[in-house]
């Protein structure tokens, strides 16, 4: 409280100062505006490179693919014409499109389940103290860091119908018969097995990523909180569900988002292993889009098929981002 307020009004000096120095509302607003504007300009300047990067590398190609999807663009034609939703309609009418759509969903869900289970288990294992922990932590990311072509071609050999090392081991331990017998699995040749084999390679390649993301989250949980819960008698699963998961939820969600995008857009594994065969049994949307868009040259229809991935991805993205935002408040 000032003396002026105590005495019931401004003293003479203040009055005088007021008469001379109190700014008008326009000046006040201009000063405020200029300070805020400066701060905002600076903020936007800092943001600009990132915004430009996103606009150029994500926004522009996305808009271009939207244009391709509604045009009759062809790899050899310099001029494309607007055809409305024709490409989407033609994809909709394709038998193979629906098989690819179904396989993409199966691929995504099954891979996500296995990656969560294996990633969580691996993250917990890597949390423990043991000799050579740092080396092991380095080694587990190898599948993720290896060039996809090399690792997938190695798997192709392991799945070979005649020289499969997996079958050889299974045969030696008596689980299956010898080469040529009924029980000899043809990993990439039986419809159900072909898709599962592709999923297995995708899981093998990317579950270390899930583990690393989770590990980063786990190490951020304060030990005191966990110790206190332990003292209160919480079991391992209670601690995990009621303490760890809520605390690392934003990290979990970001990991889930990345994983969904990586899995749905994974063209290489299926293309290199089966090209979508046998008889489209392992065909997924990215492979179909590539075959129609690039190999057969119909950019418009290829883009339309690829854009069908957006409705699959969008709900997951909205769900994740909304959850994260809600928790921030």
């Amino acid at each position, binding site marked *: 409280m000032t003396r002026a307020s105590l005495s019931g009004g401004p003293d003479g000096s203040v009055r005088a100062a007021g008469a001379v120095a109190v700014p008008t509302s326009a000046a006040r607003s201009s000063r405020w505006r200029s300070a805020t504007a400066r701060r905002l300009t600076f903020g936007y300047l800092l943001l600009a490179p990132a915004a430009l990067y996103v606009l150029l590398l994500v926004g522009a190609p996305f808009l271009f693919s939207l244009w391709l999807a509604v045009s*009759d663009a*062809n*790899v*050899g*034609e*310099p001029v494309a014409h607007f055809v409305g939703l024709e490409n989407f309609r*033609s994809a909709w*009418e*394709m*038998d*193979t499109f629906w098989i690819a759509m179904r396989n993409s969903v199966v691929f995504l869900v099954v891979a996500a389940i296995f990656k969560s289970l294996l990633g969580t288990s691996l993250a917990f294992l890597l949390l423990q103290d043991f000799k050579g922990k740092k080396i092991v932590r380095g080694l587990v990311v190898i599948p993720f860091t290896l060039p996809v072509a090399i690792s997938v071609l190695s798997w*192709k050999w392991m*799945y*070979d*119908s*005649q*020289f499969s090392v997996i079958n050889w081991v299974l045969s030696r331990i008596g689980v299956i018969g010898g080469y*040529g017998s009924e029980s000899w699995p*043809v*990993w*990439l*040749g*039986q*419809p159900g097995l*072909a898709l599962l084999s592709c999923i297995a390679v995708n899981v093998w390649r990317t579950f270390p990523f899930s583990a690393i993301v989770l590990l980063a989250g786990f190490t951020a949980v304060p030990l005191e909180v966990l110790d206190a819960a332990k003292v209160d008698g919480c079991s391992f699963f209670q601690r995990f569900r009621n303490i760890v998961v809520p605390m690392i939820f934003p990290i979990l969600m970001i990991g889930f988002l990345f994983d969904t995008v990586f899995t749905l857009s994974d063209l290489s594994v299926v293309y290199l292993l*089966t*090209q*979508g*065969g*046998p*008889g*489209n049994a392992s065909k997924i949307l990215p492979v179909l889009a590539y*075959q*129609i868009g*690039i*190999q*057969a*040259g*119909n*950019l418009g*229809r290829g883009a339309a098929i690829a854009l069908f991935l957006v409705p699959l991805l969008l709900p997951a993205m909205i769900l994740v981002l909304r959850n994260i935002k809600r928790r921030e408040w």
Partner: protein
Amino acid sequence: MSDTPHTLTERPATSRRHFLRASGTGLAGASLLTMLDAKKAPAQIKGTTLRILQWSHFIPAYDAWFDNKFAKEWGDKNGVKVRVDHIPHLELPARMAAEYAAGAGHDIIMNGSSILTRLYYKSLLDISDVYEKIGKERGGWIPSAGPLVTVEGRQYGFPMFYILLPMLYRKDLFDANNLKAPDTWELARVAARTLKAKGHPTGIQFSQCADANLNWRSLLFSFGGAEADASGNNILIDSKETREALKFAKALFDEGMTPEVFSWDDASDNRFLASGVGCWIHDAISAYRTTEDTNPNVFKNTMIGLEPAGPGGKRVSTSAANVYMVWKFSKNQQAAKEFLTHFGLEFKEGMVQSRGYNMPYLLGDAKKPMPVIGADPKMSILQEFPPMVAFYGYPGPFTTPIQEVVNLFVLPDMFTRVARGQNIEEVMKWGVGEYRRIFSKHKTA
């Protein structure tokens, strides 16, 4: 301002554009003729760089010879720096799309198996002059060569070579079981049935790979089936012959194969033969060469057979075509044309270096005895193939709808579905539906 519309008669007899085009063609033709006579390229290409993109050949020694000797020597002789890049054949269409979009890249680009002339011809250099001159010089082209590179009467590509897929069979196993050589598909089936019981099944890819596209077409066409008519516009797949071929393939699978064929890629049958298990395969001679290099005992007993005849005695060998193209955006079109001329004139050396893998489109080069294969008693049968060679879309040309049919593996999928036990009529309904959908889409476009 006159309201009278311009008519053709009012236009000058020779426009500036016509004059430039005619004089350019004349100059190019004249320099080509001079060059053909002198067997030497003109001086204006000196100091330039020619960039070539092609596949990694299945016979690696061919690439070594092509890059370090053939192209280099031509370059040294003509003062042109030649750079040859190799990528896997399956990546060629994507690379072509990328170069087209960028409007930059190599001067000469190869198409392997999937021939994209009709898709890109507006962006490709018209090399009809080279095509015609080399054809004249070397005794003409085999009939199936033209449709691969011709659009609206002009040639936008240069046929390089094609790859045959003959029968490769184990003579020792056939003789030991009193089986006749697989000269017909029926004899091949009998052999497969007999030898599968003795641990030596056969195999053809029931999967989505290039060999599956080629092999099942050979069977279908030899059974009298067809994909499209000579115009390439009308589908002929819905026929009694297609049904017969599907029925035969189902029997061949049930009696003579194991389910592993559903997982095979282009190299699986090579390994299958080389391992000593397979009694016969229908594949390129790279399988024969692989066996020679990895299992001499099996190789000693492996014979090459003529394309098996269908029930009516017809033999059609669907082969993998390979074509060179020159981009219109190429800054070194003249050198590209001259290199192709040199390639066409010296084709026989390529046959030698590829150990008989590269087959000639030019009749002069197809005369007996052909290099390598003419001198090898086991391979000499390959000299009988040129008249029965066909490509995708037979008897029609390799059009863009056929290209999509091929890239989506519609035909191998029809055979796969039948082998897996699906009813033939249901499969026909699906397959014909796919052909019609693809053709009608292209017609609309």
